[in-house]
């Protein structure tokens, strides 16, 4: 890793990280502020939701409507989407641009005429992207935790909260690796932001469809969103080796292949 490049990149990306953290933090806090009202109108909400088709309830991510009357269930049902969807978009956009922007911004020739190896450039940019993703997740988790502490009524179990946060982090890192992979396979020096955002949305849509009741949701595992176990209120909820292995394995594979491609890649201008 090259420290000179790392600090420069850190400064370059600082505003983006601050902006995304603020937006996600505000959304989480704002959403959690409704928990008191949900509890207050518990019976009316339950009666109203009873009229909604079961398929729609499942699509929304509830196994049971009573889930939202616990602070953790409410947090997961309403806020998980921010970190799963917005966090993944942040991750893939950041990482897909971090190498490619040197090429379409035409600074690659300048950077690569310095005495720095391709491996150093790759690992530095990767470290920077992953650090940003981790920081965003830490900040969002911290804000989520504070919001839960502020708005909770009754008990709160920390362990499932930390587990779901870990899954979300792994999901975001996987999308980070996917973004890098897409960028090194590009044959033209142009931004791939639209494609990457579209890809995240398609995968999220696949995951949502797979959760509809009456549908065999096996195909949903094509989407990494499905690899996150969001059933936080299940008594057996915890870290599952198979899910962690899937996230870590796929992330490592994408990074390895990306690194190998980048080593022999003709730099685009």
């Amino acid at each position, binding site marked *: 890793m090259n420290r000179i490049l790392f600090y*420069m990149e850190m400064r370059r990306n600082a505003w983006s990280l601050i902006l995304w953290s603020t937006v996600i933090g505000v959304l989480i806090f704002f959403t959690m502020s409704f928990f008191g009202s949900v509890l207050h109108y518990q019976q009316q909400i339950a009666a109203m939701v009873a009229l909604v088709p079961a398929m729609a309830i499942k699509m929304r991510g509830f196994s049971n409507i009573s889930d939202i009357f616990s602070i953790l269930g409410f947090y997961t049902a309403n806020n998980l989407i921010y970190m799963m969807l917005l966090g993944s978009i942040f991750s893939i956009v950041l990482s897909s641009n971090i190498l490619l922007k040197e090429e379409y911004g035409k*600074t*690659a020739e*300048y950077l*690569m*005429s*310095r005495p*720095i190896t391709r491996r150093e450039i790759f690992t530095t940019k990767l470290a920077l992207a992953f650090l940003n993703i981790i920081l965003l997740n830490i900040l969002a988790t911290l804000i989520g935790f504070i919001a839960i502490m502020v708005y909770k009524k009754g008990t709160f179990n920390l362990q499932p909260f930390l587990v779901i946060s870990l899954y979300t982090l792994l999901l975001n890192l996987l999308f980070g690796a996917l973004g890098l992979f897409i960028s090194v396979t590009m044959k033209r020096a142009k931004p791939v932001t639209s494609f990457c955002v579209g890809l995240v949305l398609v995968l999220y849509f696949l995951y949502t469809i797979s959760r509809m009741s009456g549908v065999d949701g096996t195909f949903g595992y094509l989407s990494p969103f499905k690899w996150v176990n969001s059933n936080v209120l299940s008594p057996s909820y915890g870290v599952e080796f198979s899910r962690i292995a899937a996230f870590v394995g796929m992330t490592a594979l994408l990074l390895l292949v990306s690194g190998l491609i980048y080593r022999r890649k003709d730099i685009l201008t």
Partner: protein
Amino acid sequence: MDIIEINHLTKSYGRSRGIEDLTLSVPKGDIFGFIGPNGSGKSTTIRILLNLIFPSSGSATIFGLDVVRDSQKIRSRTGYVPSDASMYDRMKVMEFLTFGAAFYGAKNNDDRIHYLLNIFDLDPGRNIAELSMGNKKKVSIIQAMIHRPELLILDEPTSGLDPLIQSRFFDLLHEENRQGTTVFFSSHTLSEVQAFCKTVAIVKDGKIVNIEEIASLRKKQLKKVRILFPAVRTIDDLGLSGIGAVESGSGKSLAFLYSGDINFLIGKLAVQPVENLSIEEPSLDEIFLHYYK
């Protein structure tokens, strides 16, 4: 000792041509011109030398080191001015220069940076994004020279520079060359290569057409001549030897390339009525047509 050695280097981009079987060597201390029209393969060659792209076949060494395997070591001793002076727009000039210099591990570069800024009359406090193309080019030149490289690779370095700054730039290059820096100078302008370089390689359609000493190239003295007569003439009426590519061979206006003695031409024209005469430097393409058809 040769600083750059290129052996049968080929780069193909699928169906389109890059460079083909290119071989040349640049001796230590030389100012070597690398000249050819746009799209002839100059930048491709340079990009291989800096390991920005990989050769399809052949090899190249700089300082005796392989350009693919040892690119980091090579670049630590090389300065490069790209043809496109793109840089990190959010930085200020001084910030950009110290950032670039930091990669070479050299500290206390401030005196050197200010010396170069002074030559190019550049304000270190300005934002890169606000700079004109010419000023960006100046920054690009400075960043390549801060660490006193043993080899300077320059790809169209004068484009965008005004004549005064060009002159200062050439003075600076001569000074660096006197102190031992080898210069590899890519251009499509023959006059600046003729004025500045010792040797020139002429590249066309991805191939080396010729490698010549500038002195021998000068002897050829190719000129583009246009003469307007009051009456119709043919090129044969002039009785000149050394006439090449004829653009207009008969009529009141004659235009042709001339590689003979210029005094002889003027002597011939002095004894007959001429309405107008222009003698100018031919374009590179015209030279290629003349010598390297």
